[in-house]
């Protein structure tokens, strides 16, 4: 058995990771097939994207140090100002690099 792992172990591990990731990627969608899309559920689902974004960036901005805070705030400000996501990301990175340089 362990001789197999020496030969194919890496492939088995990659396959396991792939299976788990796909199960997660498809699982939420699949599960929601059994939940009636009432008005309330739709309302919660449409609130989900913003919530995920906030839950990702807020702890980072609070705890990730000055560079992360600068990147997040700059990007947010630039986006609010000119609605160009590429420019916002570039400015955010620039702000982080600037903070790190000093």
């Amino acid at each position, binding site marked *: 058995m362990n001789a197999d792992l020496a030969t194919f172990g890496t492939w088995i*591990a*990659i396959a396991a990771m792939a299976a788990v990731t796909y199960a*997660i990627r498809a699982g939420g*969608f699949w599960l929601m*097939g059994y939940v009636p899309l009432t008005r309330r559920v*739709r309302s919660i689902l449409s609130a989900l994207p913003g919530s995920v974004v906030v*839950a990702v*960036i807020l702890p980072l901005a609070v705890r990730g140090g000055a560079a992360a805070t600068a990147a997040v705030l700059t990007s947010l400000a630039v986006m609010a100002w000119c609605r160009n996501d590429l420019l*916002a990301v570039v400015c955010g990175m620039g702000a982080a*690099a600037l903070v790190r340089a000093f």
Partner: protein
Amino acid sequence: MTSSETKRDKSTWSGFVLGMRLGFPVAPGIMAFGLVVGAAAARTGLSFFQSLAMNFLVCSGIAQLVALEIWPPVLTWGVIATIALLTAVVGARLFLMSVAMRPWFGQMPAWQAYAGLFFLTDATWLIAMRYRSDGGGDVAVYFGAAATIMAGWLAATAIGFFAGGFIVDPARYGFDLVMPAFFAAMLVPLWAGARRAWGWVIGGAVAVAVERLVPGWWFIVAGSIAGAVAGGYLDEPEE
């Protein structure tokens, strides 16, 4: 209500091109990350084809980095189980993103939806949600964005695999913060009024608290669910 659930899907070439274009702002960040993941795979001793297979099939940068971090020279079933479990924990947020895809992808044939979900990443999901909240319904936009991101990812991980030793620290130019910056930028078009913002405040507070108390990435899951449920219930209650 901001959703546009009545819009029917249609697939167009121009939609695909638009999607590819929407993928450009995040591409540099994904590629910078890809260089690091590719280099890590080479360092761990994976062959190029193993690395390529992992990058395509798993396509989850953080999960791969974490797995490669604990990858021993000789694998045992226990280690494989641990790697699979870590992949699930790190990828848990993708489950919520998948949940949010239901109203849109639920309208299309199952095979198309399940094929599309294979390409679900942070970036493709954000692009899809933003496009959707602007009222778009062309599923080709999603696949176009997925094409840009997958192409950039595979190219960068391949370069990282062979050039690993020469890679400068991505943090120096702020590349490691591209995803947070992109997330922050996406918050602006997702703004849906002050009432909804209370959900964000609640979700954000939960996320910050959980991040302090619980190790790992659970803060994203906890904060997202809290924020979405709060936002959903604070929405105009008209049944």
